[in-house]
Structure formats: C-alpha cells, structure tokens
C-alpha cells in the first residue's frame, strides 16, 4: 500500500515538473530572464573593474568574494567534521584494551 502511494507521489511530482516547464526561461535566448539582469554588467565591465578577463573568476573572487569566503569555510568545516567523526582517540582505546586484558585475566 505504501509503495503504491509513494509511486503516486513520485508520478505527481514528475507531472507537475513537466507541466510547469513552459514557465521556465527560454533556453538559448540572450534576452531571457537569467541573462538580462546583472550578467551584462559583469560581461561588459569586469575587465576594467577587476583586471580579470575570465568573467567566472571575476564574479567568484571579486564581485562575490564574501560568498566564496563562506564556501571555503563550509568546505573547511566539512573536512574538520569528517576527521573528528572518524578519529581514533588513543587514550580511550588503551584504557579499553587494558580493561579487556583485566577481564580476560579474571576469567
């Protein structure tokens, strides 16, 4: 029963996405919404304003440098999280092994 409901929900989501496709911006069109608001300014002025012919680098490091600082911090935090999750605390392990040895001796 739950399986059928899940399939129906998935089908509904897919259907909604396919139906509302015509509301998305038109592809390949230089006058569509994503290509008009602020990107012409970046394309026209980034060479004079930032000295970088690569627009992507100009946007990433200069116009939106603060964002990239946040992203770098996110990556750093994720790295710390991985290392802390999988750390092997030596002191605790030694204690555990000592305890195991003692228990073995008792038995």
């Amino acid at each position, binding site marked *: 029963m739950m*399986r059928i409901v*899940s399939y129906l929900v*998935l089908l509904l*989501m*897919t259907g909604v*996405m*396919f139906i509302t*496709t*015509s509301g*998305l*911006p*038109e*592809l*390949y*069109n*230089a006058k569509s919404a*994503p*290509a008009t608001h*602020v*990107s*012409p300014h*970046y*394309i*026209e002025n*980034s*060479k004079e304003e930032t000295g970088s*012919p*690569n*627009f*992507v680098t*100009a*946007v*990433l490091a200069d116009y*939106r440098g603060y*964002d*990239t600082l946040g*992203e770098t911090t*996110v*990556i750093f935090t*994720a*790295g710390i*999280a*991985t290392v802390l*999750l*999988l750390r092997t605390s030596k002191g605790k392990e030694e204690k555990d092994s000592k305890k195991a040895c003692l228990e073995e001796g008792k038995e």
Partner: protein
Amino acid sequence: MKEYFTRYIIYWLIFVLFMIGPYGMIFKKNLLKKLMAMNIMQVAVILFFLVLGLKTNGSIPILDSGIIGIDNYINPIPHALMLTAIVVSLATTGVSLALLLLIQRRYGALEEDELLRRMNK
C-alpha cells in the same frame, strides 16, 4: 510541436535525472544507495543551473578581443555559483560517507530493515 519539443527537451531530460533522486531515496533500502541517489539529484540541479546560462552562438565566458557583444558570451553567473556547489557537494559527501562508515562499524549493516532490527535489540 517540433519547436516546442526542441525548446524543452533539455529541461525534460534534467527532470528525469532529478527524479532518480527521490525514487532512490524512497525505494532503496541500502543507505549507501540512498546517498548515491541524492548525489545524482545534486548533479541534476547543477546541470539545471548550467543550462540556464546557455546562449545561441555563445562563447566561453573569457574575454577575447575577437568576440564583441554581450550576446556572444554565455552567462557567467551560473558557472561561478555551481563551481562552488560542486566542491561543497564533494565535502558534504565526505561527511555523509564518514557517518555511514560509523553506522557500519557500530551495527554491522547498512540495510534499513536490518538496522532497525539491530537497533531495537
């Protein structure tokens, strides 16, 4: 009809790729497979944003003296945003893999029903 089809076919393919994600996350029992489905979903979102930057006759977003005019460079903003999204997805995948490794070490299983059974013991 044909024009309608060619205009939206890329969006439809991306939607199909996207729906692999919820499908896998709902129906697969293995946690690693769920994580892979989530990553596929992430790739679909990244592709969706990259597609928004396309233009007819658009060159790569690097200033070239031979190419003049705004319409001849593709939109640089989705590229800049998705570049960081890709690297962040790498880091978060690392964290989730670490969590899965801990679950595997503690319970000895990654299957959902098996996990529930061992947790209730």
